[in-house]
């Protein structure tokens, strides 16, 4: 700190009263950093950037979100549809959560590989685990806020974990809920805590960095810096390297935001929460899956401990055991580079965690139960048996005398890792679909691909089909007549369309409610006054709202397209269906209440297109897709521009980094 000098009077004036400049100089500029850090050391700063992005997007989302069970779901959809750039903020935030966990998991495994938890970095490691725990709590509560089906049932399942504890369990759960089930009080407090916890994380990050700067960074060799020849000042060497990493990462992150924004999400969460119906397959967000698998691995009561309690204890222990790691690992050598045996067990452990994650995402059935149990046993075995023994029996390779030697890592590793990750999750997604292969329309849908957009003509035809056919039974509550301007209707045409229907308004000066023709600003008027009326008119089956249909089913557009064309006149041999139901190949359970909705020439297209049933299905799916993702065209075209910009900026940063580092290599 003594090295700080400035010619600027104002700076000196401030510095004498608050030594902020010398502190910055000391901790962000001069901070001696090992000269041999590889790209795996970028993930800490990346996670910090992600934390800032999450807090910023979250703050602006909170300005439009309403934490009330009656309107929470709709308020999120309003953000998506009506708030300026609301879709961008929400997708940045939702995908940001997944990115944050990807970064932090890599950061943790980097610590595991290079022994960054060993003396003198134990407290640094503890604070890191505390950050991880706070992130898990924050992520969980955030996922509850949109108040979809997964939100509600995730909240129910996770809060019920605490009921496993004997005696106090039930009271804890009631306390968490503020009622007798997950309900409005729960949503309110989760919102409050979801807002608070990120700032707790910021505080923990400050302590994490403080501890880091006290003990200095570990490095790929795991040996201490012995003098100035082993270190570089943080600025400019690592500022530019971190910035370059941020550029690469941003492209990875934004690719999801602009082209696959619901990749990490569950379609069920686009169905509003319903406390009466649990979705058939409940899964937590992917980042909890390994722990979820451990929770489910315990299926037998042992002595007086019920299976439920075992699972819960094991799940918490799986994280808490990390606190004991500095002592469980008995080897004095830090980096796996010099620990031939540990290195192999490290990869085994990583594989074990990935398998646990895979098992956690699948229904608990058949062989997967056993796999989950074995992997759980191995998880704990790694910490409790393998690590303590390895330190005793392993013969480490000789450590080099000092760090000052060429740095050889490249971005290639990073790229390979990203591809691997994306591939893995893609596979998980593809294999989650059940039932027959879905039909695809000839030529595919117009909005697919990087540059795809909704076909305007198909949208107008689709609206005609919806208006003439679907809307007789189905509502589309989230779309307003004014939105039809997006698909090419003029203001006057919209007035005429809206005025076909009446809505209730009032009370007037006499205190009476009255009907008036709908206006452009009204939502599309549903065919029935309420859900009960809709059910009564449809033989007890409620025709679902179509606003989000394409997003609320796995492979939504293909599913809806296939469903409309998937009818059979009579149920095939061996597939009896109840009286009054139709047989459909694609509907879960095959027995559907909706009669075949599309037939050749059920509408006459005003633009002269031949109304085959395939054409009709394709058009209406296009329209439904617009209804579910009205922002899609804007999203993709913005994505292209942003990517071009980022590619340029990242290339510049790379060139600058090469220039700055050229005398070090």
């Amino acid at each position, binding site marked *: 700190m003594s090295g700080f000098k400035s010619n600027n009077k104002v700076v000196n004036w401030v510095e004498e009263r608050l030594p902020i400049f010398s502190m910055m100089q000391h901790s962000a500029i001069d901070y001696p950093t090992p000269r041999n850090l590889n790209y795996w050391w970028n993930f800490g700063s990346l996670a910090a950037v992600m934390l800032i992005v999450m807090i910023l997007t979250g703050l602006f989302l909170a300005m439009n979100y309403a934490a009330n069970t009656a309107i929470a779901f709709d308020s999120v959809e309003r953000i998506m549809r009506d708030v300026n*750039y609301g879709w961008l903020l929400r997708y940045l935030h939702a995908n940001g959560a997944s990115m944050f966990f990807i970064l932090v998991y890599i950061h943790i495994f980097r610590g595991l590989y290079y022994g960054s938890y060993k003396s003198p970095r134990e407290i640094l490691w503890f604070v890191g685990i505390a950050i991880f725990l706070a992130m898990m709590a924050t992520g969980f509560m955030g996922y509850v806020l949109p108040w979809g089906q997964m939100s509600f049932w995730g909240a129910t399942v996770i809060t019920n974990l605490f009921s496993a504890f004997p005696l106090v369990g039930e009271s804890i759960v009631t306390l968490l809920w503020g009622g007798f089930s997950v309900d409005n009080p729960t949503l309110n407090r989760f919102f409050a805590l979801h807002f608070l916890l990120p700032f707790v994380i910021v505080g923990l990050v400050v302590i994490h960095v403080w501890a880091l700067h006290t003990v200095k960074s570990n490095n790929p060799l795991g040996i201490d810096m012995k003098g100035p020849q082993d270190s570089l000042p943080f600025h400019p060497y690592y500022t530019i390297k971190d910035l370059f990493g941020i550029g690469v990462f941003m492209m990875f992150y934004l690719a999801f935001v602009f082209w696959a924004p619901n990749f990490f999400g569950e379609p069920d969460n686009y169905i509003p929460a319903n406390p009466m119906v649990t979705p058939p397959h409940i899964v937590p967000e992917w980042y909890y899956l390994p722990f979820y698998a451990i929770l489910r691995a315990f299926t037998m009561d042992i002595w007086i401990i019920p299976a439920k309690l075992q699972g819960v204890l094991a799940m918490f222990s799986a994280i808490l055991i990390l606190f004991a790691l500095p002592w469980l690992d008995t080897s004095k050598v830090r980096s796996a580079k010099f620990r031939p045996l540990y290195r192999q067990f490290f990869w085994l452990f990583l594989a074990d965690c990935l398998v646990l994650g895979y098992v956690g995402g699948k229904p608990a059935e058949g062989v997967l139960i056993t796999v989950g149990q074995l992997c759980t046993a191995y998880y704990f075995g790694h910490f409790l048996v393998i690590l303590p023994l390895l330190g005793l029996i392993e013969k480490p390779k000789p450590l080099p005398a000092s760090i000052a030697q060429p740095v050889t890592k490249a971005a290639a590793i990073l790229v390979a890792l990203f591809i691997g990750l994306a591939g893995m999750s893609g596979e998980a997604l593809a294999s989650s679909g059940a039932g027959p292969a879905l039909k695809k329309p000839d030529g595919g849908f117009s909005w697919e691909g990087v540059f795809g957009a909704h076909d305007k003509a198909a949208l107008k035809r689709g609206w005609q089909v919806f208006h003439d056919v679907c809307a007789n039974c189905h509502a589309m509550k989230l779309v307003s007549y004014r939105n039809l301007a997006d698909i090419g209707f003029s203001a006057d045409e919209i007035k005429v369309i809206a005025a076909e229907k009446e809505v209730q308004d009032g009370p007037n000066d006499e205190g009476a409610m009255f009907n008036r023709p709908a206006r452009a600003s009204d939502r599309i008027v549903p065919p029935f006054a309420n859900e009960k009326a809709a059910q009564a008119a449809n033989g007890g089956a409620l025709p679902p709202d179509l606003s989000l249909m394409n997003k609320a089913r796995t492979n939504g557009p293909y599913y809806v397209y296939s469903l409309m064309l998937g009818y059979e006149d009579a149920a095939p041999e061996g597939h009896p269906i109840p009286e009054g139901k139709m047989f459909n190949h694609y509907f879960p359970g095959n027995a559907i209440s909706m009669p075949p909705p599309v037939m050749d020439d059920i509408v006459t297209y005003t633009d002269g297109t031949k109304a085959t049933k395939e054409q009709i299905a394709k058009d209406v799916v296009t329209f439904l897709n617009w209804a579910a993702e009205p922002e899609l065209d804007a999203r993709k075209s913005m994505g292209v521009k942003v990517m071009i910009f980022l590619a340029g*900026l990242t290339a510049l940063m790379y060139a600058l980094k090469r220039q700055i580092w*050229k*005398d070090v290599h």
Partner: protein
Amino acid sequence: MADQAHNAQPSSVDGQTRRDFLLYATSAVGVVGTGIALWPFVHSMNPAADTLALSTTDVDISAIKPGQSVTVVWRGKPVFVRHRLPEEIADAGKVDVASLREPQKDGDRAKKPEWLILVGVCTHLGCVPLGQKPADPKGEFGGWFCPCHGSHYDTSGRIRKGPAPANLPVPPYQFTSDTTVRIG
């Protein structure tokens, strides 16, 4: 810094120029990009599409007798609809327009002289002026009186005395029939 030691060599002078160029180019592009990225955040605080779409309010004026006023809500703000008496219209027409703080003829403020329609928000700092109910103080000019800081408006809703800088604004409106007005 590591490469300053080599500055004397020609190749490194090139290197220094190249480095400066890269530094400036990267910083400029980065700063511009960050600036643009902030816009969606700021713009998200502007009125949303559904807010902007709630544009019109229909008022039934058949029951408003001469001399009476009603207050309706338009875009979350009060709108005054006053059925003016002939003497009020005459008062408003007599005023020397040039003497006003915001010179406006009464004829330009009312499409039909007997119906005066105003946004009922004081142009000073946003209070709702009194004068709608029979018992309300109407100020020295028989129109409206804002109690917050004492602004007096006349029977055309024009500012005549007090701190307010401008007349009560006239919202966009149309007579959709003899008995209804659509505001907005």
